[in-house]
C-alpha cells in the first residue's frame, strides 16, 4: 500500500501560512467536489473569527444543499423549514437584538418558496445578514429548475431548456430587494477565483460591520457553480458560469449605504 502523502518534517509553525479556522467544525463537508459552498462557508466563518464574535452569533441554515450547514459552522444554529429562514432570523434578532444573526440560503429556498419571507424581512429592515447562494438549480433534490435558472438552461424539470413562455422568467430577486428602503447593503459576488474569493470575504465583513450598527438588512448574493447539477466538470462549470451566469447576474455592488449604485454597462470578467 502506498504511504499517505504526509511530510511531517515540514509541519512546523513557521511554515504554516493558512489553516482551517476553528469556526469550522473539523469534519468532511457534504458538498460535491468543485462546488462553491465550501468556500463561502469558510469565508463566512473566517470573518466571524476575525471579528471574534462566536458567542455573539446565531445562524440559520435552510433546506437545500446547505441544509447541514449547521454541522460545519461552529456557532449556534437553527435549521429552518424550506424558505423560512428570514422569519426565524427576524425573531432571533428581535429576541436578541445585540447578537449577530445570519441566514444562509439557496436560490430555491430564498427566491421561490421563501419569496414572501425574504421580501418582508428585507422590507422591515431587520438587522441581519442574508447570504444567498445562486447556482440556478435545485442541487440537493437532483437538478430541477430553480427560480434563477437561465432562459434556455436545461435541468431535470426543463429537460429541453427553460422555455420562458411556459416556465416563466428567471427572478432577479437581488435587484428587487435592493429597491426596498429597509435594505442597506446589496452586493453580488462569486468565489471561483482567488480574487473573487477575497472580494466575497470583504463583502461579508462589510455586511457584519453594518449589522453591528443596526442599519438594516445586508444581502450578499454569491453566484456559484453546480457542477453536479449542471452535469459538467468543475472547470467546465466555472467557465460556463462566467460565460452565461455573469452576463445575466452581473457581479458587483448593487446598493451601498442605503443608496442604489449607478448601473455600469461593463460586465466584470477576470
Amino acid at each position, binding site marked *: 500500500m502506498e504511504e499517505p502523502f504526509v511530510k511531517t518534517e515540514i509541519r512546523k509553525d513557521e511554515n504554516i501560512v493558512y489553516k482551517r479556522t476553528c469556526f469550522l467544525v473539523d469534519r468532511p463537508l457534504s458538498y460535491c467536489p468543485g462546488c462553491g459552498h465550501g468556500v463561502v462557508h469558510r469565508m463566512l466563518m473566517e470573518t466571524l473569527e476575525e471579528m471574534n464574535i462566536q458567542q455573539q452569533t446565531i445562524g440559520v441554515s435552510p433546506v437545500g444543499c446547505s441544509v447541514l450547514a449547521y*454541522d460545519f459552522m461552529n456557532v449556534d*444554529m*437553527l435549521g429552518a423549514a424550506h424558505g*423560512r429562514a428570514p*422569519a*426565524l432570523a427576524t425573531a*432571533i434578532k428581535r*429576541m436578541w437584538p445585540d447578537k449577530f444573526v445570519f441566514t444562509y440560503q439557496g436560490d430555491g429556498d430564498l427566491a421561490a418558496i421563501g419569496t414572501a*419571507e425574504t421580501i*418582508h424581512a428585507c422590507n422591515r429592515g431587520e438587522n441581519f445578514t442574508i447570504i444567498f447562494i445562486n447556482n440556478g438549480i435545485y442541487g440537493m433534490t437532483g437538478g430541477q429548475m430553480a427560480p434563477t435558472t437561465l432562459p434556455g438552461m436545461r435541468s431535470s424539470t426543463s429537460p429541453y431548456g427553460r422555455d420562458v413562455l411556459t416556465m416563466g422568467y428567471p427572478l432577479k430577486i437581488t435587484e428587487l430587494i435592493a429597491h426596498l428602503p429597509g435594505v442597506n447593503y446589496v452586493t453580488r459576488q462569486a468565489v471561483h477565483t482567488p480574487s473573487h474569493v477575497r472580494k466575497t470575504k470583504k463583502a461579508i465583513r462589510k455586511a457584519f460591520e453594518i449589522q453591528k450598527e443596526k442599519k438594516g438588512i445586508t444581502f450578499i448574493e454569491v453566484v456559484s457553480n453546480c457542477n453536479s447539477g449542471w452535469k459538467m466538470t468543475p472547470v467546465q462549470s466555472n467557465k460556463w458560469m462566467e460565460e452565461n451566469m455573469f452576463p445575466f447576474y452581473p457581479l458587483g455592488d448593487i446598493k451601498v449605504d442605503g443608496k442604489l449604485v449607478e448601473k455600469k454597462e461593463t460586465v466584470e470578467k477576470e
Partner: protein
Amino acid sequence: MGELRLMKGNEAVAEAAIRAGCDGYFGYPITPQSEVMEYLMAEKPHERTGMVVLQAESEVASINMLYGGAGTGKMVMTSSSSPGISLMQEGISYMAGAELPALVVNIVRGGPGLGTIQPSQADYFQAVKGGGHGDYKMIVLAPASVQEMCDHTKLGFELAFKYRNPVMILSDGAIGQMMEKVMLFDPIPRRSDEEVIKQNPWAATGKPANREHIIITSLDLDPAGQEKVNLKLQAKYRKMEENEVRYETLGCEDAEYLLVAFGLSARICQKSMDLARAKGIKVGLFRPITLFPFPSRSINELGRKVKGMLVVEMNAGQMIEDVRLSVGCNIKIEHFGRFGGIIPTPDEVVKALETQIIGG
C-alpha cells in the same frame, strides 16, 4: 392580590401573556381573534415589560418566527383562527420535532375552507391528532370561560417549557369575543437574558468557548437516529398522559346519564343539565380541560356507572371518537352537534339526550 376586570376572551389572552412574562408575540390578523394583537399593540408591552409584538406577513411567517424565537429559549406565542392555524401546521410539526416550547392560541371558527367567522369546535381532530406531518402531539387546553383564557395562557407557557413542546389553547370565536369578569394574576417579570441562558441550556443563545455549538433541528437523515428521536418524543407524550390530565365533573355522583363536552359546549351543557334535572333526569357533566392528554381513565370509570353518554360538540362528531375509545362499547354513546357556526341551545341538548340516549 390580582386584579378584577371585565374583558373579552381574546383580550384576556393578550393581558395574561404580558403578565406571564412573555418575550415575543408574532401574529397575523384573522377574525375572530384579531383583538389579541390589537390589545397587545395598544398596551405597548415593549414599554411595560420589554415584550416584542410583531405583525408578520402571514401565518406561515408567524409560526416560523415562533420557531426562531423559541429556539433561542425565549417565551413566545402566536394566535390565529382555523384557516390560519391550518397554514401553521408545518411549523408546529417542526417545533414538536425540534422540541421547542411555544404557545399557539386557536380561536376556532367554522369550516371547512374559508367557512365562516362564527364559533366552532371543528378543529378538535387537527389539534389533538396532530394536524401536521409526522408522529407528534401537543398539549391541548380547552378553556370554557374568559377566566380560563387568562389562566390557560399562563399554564400553557409553563407546560410548554416543562416539556419543551408546543402547547395549544383550543378556544372558539364565542369565548374569544364574549366579555366576562376575569381575575388577572399578578405580573411575573420577564426572565433576564442570563436567566434564559441558564434555564435553557439546550437553546441557541450564542456559543461560549466552553460548550459545543447548539443545533436546533428536526432533521436526522439516519433512520436509526430518527427512530431514536421518535421514541424519545413518544416517551415524553406518555409522561404528559401520566401527569397533565385535567378535567372537571359536575353532578356526576348520582348521574345515570352523562353529557360530555369541552369549551363553549360545556358551558351550554351546564344549563342543559339544570333543565334536565328539573325534569327529573339524573344527568351529570364531564368536561375535559386537556384534550390531549385526554382524560380516558376518568371517563372509563364513569362509563361503568352510567347508562349512556351524549357527547355535545360544535362539530360533526370528533371528540366522540376518543370518548368511545375510552369507554368501550358497553353503553350507548351518541353525538349531538351543530356546525357551521351555529351554537346549540340548552333545550336542543336536552331533547337530544331524551331522544338519542334515554328513549333511543
